[in-house]
């Protein structure tokens, strides 16, 4: 807890200095967030190249408009918002170009050394189901289950009411549940519920 408070205090100070135009402070903020934002963008867009573009756009926009930030404690939420919006724009741009959405398939050779066959199958199942979700549902799922954000914060980031967050989650999970019916969760996970 003490470490989390220290990190929050340091982030607040870095944001305050970035608002004053301190490039080094902003570089530190980039260092602290770029891995997380890249993971979010990759999960939403399902394409590492487009994810890089989206994160670059988001962080450049964060630097240019950093003085619009009134509350330094909202830094992370704001970064998540502009990253998600950059993803939306990237996806829209691709639709305009009539590009077929890329599907990222995990490289089995890269992970075989440390993953079991079951784990590989799980990864593949999650990949496929994530690919099948509409973009806005994917964004809600990633914010809620990858970043583990509470529903009201997901709503703030996406600029939608909590009710809409819930309904999108509900629909996404319903769709996932339906897919699971065709590709069930591995038996090991199921046993403990009904024994």
């Amino acid at each position, binding site marked *: 807890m003490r470490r989390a408070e220290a990190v929050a205090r340091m982030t607040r100070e870095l944001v305050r200095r970035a608002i004053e135009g301190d490039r080094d402070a902003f570089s530190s903020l980039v260092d602290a967030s770029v891995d997380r934002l890249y993971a979010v963008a990759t999960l939403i867009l399902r394409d590492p190249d487009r994810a890089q573009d989206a994160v*670059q756009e988001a962080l450049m926009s964060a630097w240019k408009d950093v*003085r619009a930030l009134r509350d330094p*404690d909202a830094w992370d939420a704001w970064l998540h918002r502009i990253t998600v919006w950059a993803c939306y724009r990237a996806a829209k741009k691709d639709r305009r170009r009539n590009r077929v959405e890329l599907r990222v398939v995990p490289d089995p050779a890269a992970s075989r050394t440390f993953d079991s066959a079951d784990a590989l199958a799980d990864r593949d199942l999650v990949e496929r189901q*994530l690919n099948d979700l509409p973009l806005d549902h994917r964004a809600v799922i990633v914010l809620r289950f990858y970043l583990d954000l509470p529903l009201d914060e997901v709503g703030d980031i996406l*600029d939608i009411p909590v009710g809409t967050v819930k309904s999108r989650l509900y629909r996404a999970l319903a769709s996932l549940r339906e897919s699971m019916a065709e590709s069930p969760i591995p038996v090991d996970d199921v046993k403990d*519920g009904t024994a």
Partner: protein
Amino acid sequence: MSDDIRLERFFEDGLHDIAPSHAPDRLRTSIISETRAVRPRPRWLALIKEPPMRTNSRLAVGSPTWRVAVIMAATLLAALMLAGAAFSGAQLLAKDGPIIVDRSGAGTYTTISEAVAAAEEGDEILVRPGTYTEAVEIDKTITLRGDGPVEDIVIAAPEDGPRSALAGRPYALLLVESNAQVSALTLRGQPSQLHIDGGTPGLSGMILDGTGDVYAGDSSPMPHDSVYFGNGTKAELRDSEVIASGSIAIHGFSEPVIVDNILRDGTNIYVKAPGAGALITGNSITDSASRAIGIWGPGPFTIRGNTIERANGEGIGVNSASIAHIEGNTIRDSQSGISISGSDPTVTANVITDNDTVGIISFGGDGVIDDNAVSGNSSGILISGGSPVVSGNTACDNGMNITISNGATPDVDDTNDFCWDQTLTAVIADYEERLQPILQADAAAGDDSTARGVVYLDQADWADELAVAVEELDLPSRYQAEVDEFVTAHHAYAESMRARSDSPSLGSLREASFEALALRQETLKALETAVAPATE
């Protein structure tokens, strides 16, 4: 562990597995080096540019007040510039005497194509009565006008005529990147009469006759496009008749204005490609062979003040995340009224009566449905999934006035009039109809059923859904106590289901289910008794 929680955990773990753990180094260095090259915007500009964001109900980013003020000022400036440009344009279009086209040889030319070839920018061509079998192409800013009764001045598409690059089919009239004004002519051809390839032309007082080439499928395919708006045109078609044709079809990135026309005997309006938008207003559409107006793609679309009768499909269909404003339309005696699928349109002040199936149906949208009058349909307003705002509507004398299903969480306020006594009676009837098969299945399944867990979860969802539906009804306050009891009982049921679902014992699940079903039946009876006096 319940199915939902297991699914969420499985997915949570899966997301962490597939997410990359590190961003590429070049991304990090590229961002840092680019920030070295630019400076942050001044605070006032950043506040205007960045959309406002609240966290914990406090304004954390941007300034709504500044943004609104700047947007209004920019809109005003743009309007002034547009007015100035229009005035200058009108001055440039001054012209000399008209060119006359007369088949008999009494004019300047005997064919329209010759006259168009000879015309210069700004010239006017008058066409005298007769049938001109030719494919007329205009790629300049001229005026082409019929000089006589419109039905007697016909341009007929030659069957073996040239095909437009836009649509790949013969045509009577093709406008290419033209701002021409065309009026008082009949265009005849099957399947296609008019192709508009870019530009901002205007057509009025026309008759477009497809000679019976209608298409009755769900979505009219391209070969049946009678009028083809394409390649980003902003053409205007007004005060015209389009008869016995396939579709007025709006293709890629076009934004036409379709106003005050009469469409009959099969014709409809259909958006065929993403990126297109349209203003569709004041039209009368009768006996369309499929849906009368079908749109998909982001738009934006404005569909206002149209009258649609006897559509052999939906009156208006909105699909695929369209941004649409649907206002003041009348839809009657059609297969259905307004259908919204995966979009968030504003559906306002429409009158939707006596259609075969549903008046307004929203599949998964989060738009606004307000101030509509919906009556005499098999079903009035049906919200299937999504969270639309439903406000100020009157839905009475439908088979079911309001239905909320499929996990929908609409924002329904007390300004709606759903003729609550009719609606509640119908809700209970529907509920019991759905309850009976489950009760019967319970009796038949016995202790050996292994599918119970799934059924229980469905029931829990269903109970929540019904509780929401009942809560949203506009009930008089004297019945509030009964309704509260009803809703509380359902929540208690749902809670007990969730608690028991975590239990490892299949037997205890079954027991919980029977208890809950009995409870539901009791509360339903209590509610029915409470409602009965009001329906007398």
